[in-house]
């Protein structure tokens, strides 16, 4: 496995740029791929898979041309190979029904309303990716600097020194 990848799915280039910029602190250690539609996001995931990279988190806007962000997250949750991927929805004005569907059917891990708080965004992405890294049993030490170090170290200790 080469790199841990976050896929940001957002059709508005300005908003996408702003999200990527807010996630700048992960750049050194985690790659951020951008996609502007659900199809494009699936291509990005396939590319990552082909390169031996591992998608750990998808941050999707709800309203996209064609399939919606919720559609994407639902399909990921329905795929046994992909369902470990952490899912975060970020949306301007999703209706109540869409939000409920995202939580019930997409196993949504977090929900942001626009405009998001950048500190909260960073903190949520950090926690969700840390959970992914632990559950996927990746090389924990590799992410101590960029993700939740203490949590990773504690997990590492528990694993290497079993009672």
């Amino acid at each position: 496995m080469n790199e841990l990848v976050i896929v940001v799915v957002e059709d508005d280039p300005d908003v996408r740029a702003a999200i990527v910029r807010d996630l700048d602190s992960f750049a050194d250690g985690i790659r951020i791929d951008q996609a502007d539609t659900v199809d494009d996001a699936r291509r990005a995931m396939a590319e990552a898979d082909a390169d031996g990279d591992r998608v750990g988190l998808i941050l999707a806007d709800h309203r996209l041309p064609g399939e919606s962000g919720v559609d994407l997250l639902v399909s990921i949750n329905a795929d046994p190979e992909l369902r470990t991927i952490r899912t975060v929805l970020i949306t301007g004005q999703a209706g109540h029904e869409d939000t409920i569907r995202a939580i019930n059917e997409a196993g949504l891990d977090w929900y942001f309303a626009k405009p998001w708080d950048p500190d909260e965004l960073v903190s949520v992405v950090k926690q969700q990716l840390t959970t992914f890294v632990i559950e996927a049993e990746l090389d924990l030490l590799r992410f101590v600097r960029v993700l939740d170090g203490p949590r990773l170290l504690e997990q590492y200790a528990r694993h290497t020194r079993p009672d």
Partner: protein
Amino acid sequence: MTRFVIIVVDTNRADGDDLARELRELLTGSADVDVVTDVETAQQHAEVIEAQGGLIPVTFVDVDLADRLSANVIRLHDAPALSRTKNVVVTSKASLRGADAALQRGAVHGMITRPWSREGLRAQLVANLAAFMIEHARDQLDDFGELLDADTRDRARTRILQQRAATRHRPTSTPLLLDSSITDTEIEARMVELFDRALGHPPRIRVAPGTTLIEAGEDVGGIYVVLDGIVRLSTRTDGGEHILHERSTGAIIGLLSLASHRRAMLQCRAVTEVRAVPITLDQLAEALGAEPELASLLTRVLVSSLARRLRRSDELQMELDQSLAALSEARAQLVASARFAALGEMAAGMAHELNNPTAAIIRATQHLVDDVAAVVADDGVREHMKEQIDATPMSTSTLRALRRDLTDSLADRVLADRLIDIGYTSLDEARVAASMDDAQLTQLEQAARLGRSLQVITGAAEHVQSLVGSLRAYSRGEDGQNAMADDVDVVAGVDDALRLLSHRMGEVDLHREVEPVAGVTARPGELQQVWTNVLTNALDAMHGRGRLSVVVGPVGTDRVAVRVIDDGQGIPPELCERIFEPRFTTKGTRVEFGLGLGLSISRQIVEDHGGSIRVDSAPGRTEFTVELPTGERHE
């Protein structure tokens, strides 16, 4: 030659003189008409006339005090000199209350209300004069010449024969209730005949339009058999008078009250001049005893009267239901309309308030560009920043491909990310930059970000400004009034609505075909409501995909048409008209802007503007056409 005298008893001298003058004209000298003002004088006068060998065939009695009417007439009737005289009661009261006792005693032979018609007065005079003459002075019938013609004499004679036969009992047993070959009119005529026979020709009364025959809530002294004229049954509530029956009243008035403790439920009032036979309760009992056939006639009349009223009541119920439904629709439409207007006002107000800050942001951003450029010392960095302000963002797939190539070529993904962030879009450019030191890279990176941020701010502010411009069209008018404006630009209005609905477009493929059109005279805010409703309706049917055509062009020389064509599932033909009805919606429980009233309100607005709205739908093609007259309009 016998002297005939008609006595007019009137408490009001002038009224009595009027009546006397009229009677003299009718009598043309064949009888004298004397006027007195009270019952005592009348009695004394009658004695004098009798003593002189004169006859008094008829008195006209006008004593306006209702509570003393019966008593006065009875006193008159009881006077020996007047015992054979026919008494016609004249009343200017719009009610017949108080005459019951006199009718019962047989002291009243006719009744007429003020203002009398000449025809009515003549009828009463002739009928009673003829009756008196045949009974008491048959030899002198000719004295009255033309006034008592042969017909009149025959009728009077028949009546008197009936009167004499009244005491005799003649049983009949016609099964009338189920005999549909006999009309109501025939039944009524037969009833009158039987009443005449049983009661010795009870008097006919003739009342002026507006006369109250029975007052609601009061005891009913008897019934009225209506011979001709229309009687209205009505009831009074806080909301005014409610007419319940007019055509459906029936020929017998007061009969139903007998079933409710003799208390009248409704007011009975003459609409036209009404001729009727009053029958008191005792008379009714007497007649029923004497003529058993009357009972079955009454039953038949009662049943058909009830049936008629029930039908009328059913009609009223239906009318009521329809009115209530229409009322509730109208109310819902008003509420929705008011809501839209309020939202439009608020939006326009917001737009107004947002205009200044947005303009400030756009101006400040331009100043920021100039000032930051001036502050940056390094020419290369400054130029790079300016380039990034106008740079077009790469597509996400191009971006990912470029990064992969760069990562492969530099064997450093983090460095590749930085170079892309700086804005290099080709491998060659990026390879050159890869040799720069970290401080240089950082400076370029920051300049690029600065440039892109300025681009974002400008772009976002301009977007807000265009939305704000569109929202202002939803305002009621320049001065906040819902006023007509000349030369309203239909194309601009449709464009504004499209802009504000852009969030609903999804993958919809919009085709906009516009020809130049003349302005319309309209309330701009209301027209925006129409465009918004029609476009929203189309977008609802399209579920975020397909082709939406918006076509604006002239029709003839004096109209403009806006056509909105979607390729949604279409509207079934049987629903095409109904979609313009209030409350009609195929949107299930979704609450949209118009609450299911959008198209109904649109039609109302368009028609108010002298235009038309129609729909033409087939599966895969639904076309809404709004046509409006162009040019100035005079309301």
